[in-house]
């Protein structure tokens, strides 16, 4: 009778022992599979969401370099003009007399402060950039034929008594829209093809009885003329009030009007002032490669800050990352606990078989063959348990994933309650919560699970067997008698 025949008989004729091991291994395998399926589902969902949300870069002027540029322009003016008064590159220097004493006044205009269009276009032409947007600085203008929203309790003495215009090349890529804080209630957003159009807040529309298709008129802060007219193409709503650019009701969230890119300059009667540019990456997986390519663009990089604008991505991903962490922890705990449980079971199992091991050794069967017989038995039962776990894994893994996402959703709800009432920042996270994850058991997972659990069984069996097999046959037989 060879060892395989003995192994088979041992499994069948010791049903309680075999069944106990079968159940334990099946449970460990199930937990492994559920952990892997949940983890895989999270990764899959994260990847697809990453692509759906997108990511990009934000270009702004470097504030530290600005002072240096002004100093350089001032030196240039001193070189160009004998009296030191004049203009260079949007910087103006003049001598002023205050209370009889002479002082130098240095100031800049929009042509100095605005991002350079040619630099923006160079970056936009980089391979991997799908689209881009330019956003103007919030520009204060006065309403000519409508009323703005005001807080009756606020002192408006130092306020401009105006509203804020924010121009966008493509409003859909505005930071407030990307973050999900600003959404359309009616109509559409402004696009790069538009001219003299605007999108207003629902509060402003309601106060003035304005609708999509109506026209609004604006004039500069200091003069009544010229009046510029814009057609309302959309009405927006906000989840949280937008952070005011400056104090005063001119900049309050409800008084912010999104326009096409050129309208604020027209209404203000000044050069355009582009505050930031956003570049959307075509494939988020190429994010770092695109970033490297942009950095190689030939332009005055010391003037600018290139900011990673994947805040949404990170916020959304954190939701998934938490789930992934839980799944990873589950896998680690199952592996560790599985090993300990199996090790203890096998110690018990092997100790109960001391008699049998002694008998087999006394009739000259080598220790290796006895160990192989025990291994065969455990792998046989383990194999059955793994197969059984494969059958019930889809249902269990779905239940596990539902539980994990439920926990995550609950946590997100608590966080949302804590965040309620806060002022919206430029890159506020969108309200995207993982409500469910669809798990799928793949052949790779089955293979991994099979290999891992079999390995766990083999290691546990060998480790626990060492306790018996290192003893001499005589000692084992003495213990038996």
């Amino acid at each position, binding site marked *: *009778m060879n060892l395989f025949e*003995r192994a088979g*008989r*041992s499994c069948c*004729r*010791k049903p309680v022992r075999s069944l106990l091991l079968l159940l334990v291994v099946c449970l460990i395998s199930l937990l492994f599979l559920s952990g892997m399926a949940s983890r895989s589902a999270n990764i899959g969902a994260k990847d697809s969401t990453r692509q759906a949300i997108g990511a990009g870069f934000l270009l702004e002027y470097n504030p530290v370099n600005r002072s240096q540029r002004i100093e350089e322009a001032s030196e240039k003016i001193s070189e160009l003009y004998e009296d030191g008064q004049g203009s260079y590159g949007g910087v103006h220097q003049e001598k002023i007399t205050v209370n009889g004493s002479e002082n130098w006044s240095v100031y800049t205009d929009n042509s100095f402060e605005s991002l350079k269009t040619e630099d923006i276009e160079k970056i936009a032409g980089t391979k991997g950039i799908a689209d881009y947007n330019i956003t103007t600085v919030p520009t204060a203008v006065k309403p000519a034929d409508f009323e703005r929203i005001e807080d009756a309790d606020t002192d408006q003495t130092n306020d401009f008594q105006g509203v804020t215009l924010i121009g966008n090349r493509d409003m859909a890529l505005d930071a407030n829209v990307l973050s999900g804080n600003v959404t359309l209630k009616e109509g559409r957003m402004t696009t790069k093809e538009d001219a003299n159009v605007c999108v207003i807040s629902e509060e402003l529309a309601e106060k003035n009885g304005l609708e999509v298709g109506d026209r609004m008129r604006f004039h500069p802060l200091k003069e009544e003329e010229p009046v510029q007219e814009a057609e309302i193409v959309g009405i927006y709503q906000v989840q949280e009030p937008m952070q005011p650019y400056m104090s005063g009701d001119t900049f309050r969230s409800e008084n912010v009007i999104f326009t096409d890119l050129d309208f604020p300059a027209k209404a203000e009667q000044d050069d355009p002032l582009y505050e930031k540019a956003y570049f959307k990456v075509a494939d988020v997986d190429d994010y770092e490669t695109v970033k490297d390519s942009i950095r190689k663009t030939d332009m005055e990089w010391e003037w600018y800050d290139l900011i990673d604008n994947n805040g949404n991505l990170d916020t959304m991903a954190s939701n998934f990352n938490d789930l992934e962490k839980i799944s990873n922890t589950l896998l680690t705990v199952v592996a560790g606990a599985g090993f300990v449980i199996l090790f203890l079971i096998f110690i018990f199992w092997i100790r109960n078989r001391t*008699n*049998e091991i*002694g*008998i*087999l*050794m*006394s*009739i*000259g*069967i*080598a220790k290796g063959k006895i160990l192989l017989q025990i291994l065969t038995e455990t792998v046989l039962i383990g194999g059955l348990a793994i197969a059984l776990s494969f059958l019930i894994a889809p249902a269990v893994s779905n239940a596990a994933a539902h539980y994990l996402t439920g926990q995550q959703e609950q946590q997100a709800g608590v966080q949302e309650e804590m965040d309620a009432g806060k002022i919206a920042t430029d890159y506020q996270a969108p309200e995207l919560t993982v409500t469910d994850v669809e798990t799928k058991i793949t052949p790779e997972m089955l293979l991994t699970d099979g290999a891992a659990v079999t390995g766990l069984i083999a290691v546990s069996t060998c480790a626990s067997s060492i306790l018996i097999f290192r003893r*001499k*046959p*005589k000692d084992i*037989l003495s213990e*038996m*008698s």
Partner: protein
Amino acid sequence: MILEARNLMYSYSSKREKLVLKNVSASFEEGTFYAVVGASGSGKTTFLSLLAGLDAPVSGQILYHGEDIRKKGLNCHRRHNISLVFQNYNLIDYLTTEENVKLGGRKDVGELLCQVSIPKEDWKRNVLKLSGGQQQRVAIARALASEARVLLADEPTGNLDEETAAEIIELLKRTAHELGKCVIVVTHSKQLAKEADEILEMKEGKLRKQERSCLEVREG
């Protein structure tokens, strides 16, 4: 001479503080039934363990057909040269009578089971369902199923009543005399020792041959 013990020394601790066997030598022939007697703790079972290759002596040799058993390995010695019978039968609990005997190495065990008087209806039964005497007969059948020429038994009648013990003794005698094997039995049983062809007494770690008359005188 099939088996020989030469100058065996054995101690439970490696420091040789207390020797259990002190320079023990003995030789054994095929077709002979030997009984090793002695007081409890005299070293009888240890001596049998060394002959069986279940343990190794501190010094000295065990020779099988003149060759040191360590040369081919103790495992090989147990597998091919000797077969063992224990007081507590040592049968595998999840195997049937027939399957336990097959562990000895022979495939057709019907004849052996008949020889040891196990009824045919018990061949397929779980071995633990047999009586003590039957279980010991199955253990002897397993030993006989082996190709080994030496049968070593440690108190084979220790757990049996007188009548059953007599049957087992008869079986061991037949094994030696009819099958021509060398049977060495460690025992306290005078009944068994009396039936042996040669009696060896273990006393204070030394083995000496005992005359049958001595045993009879002591008994008298």
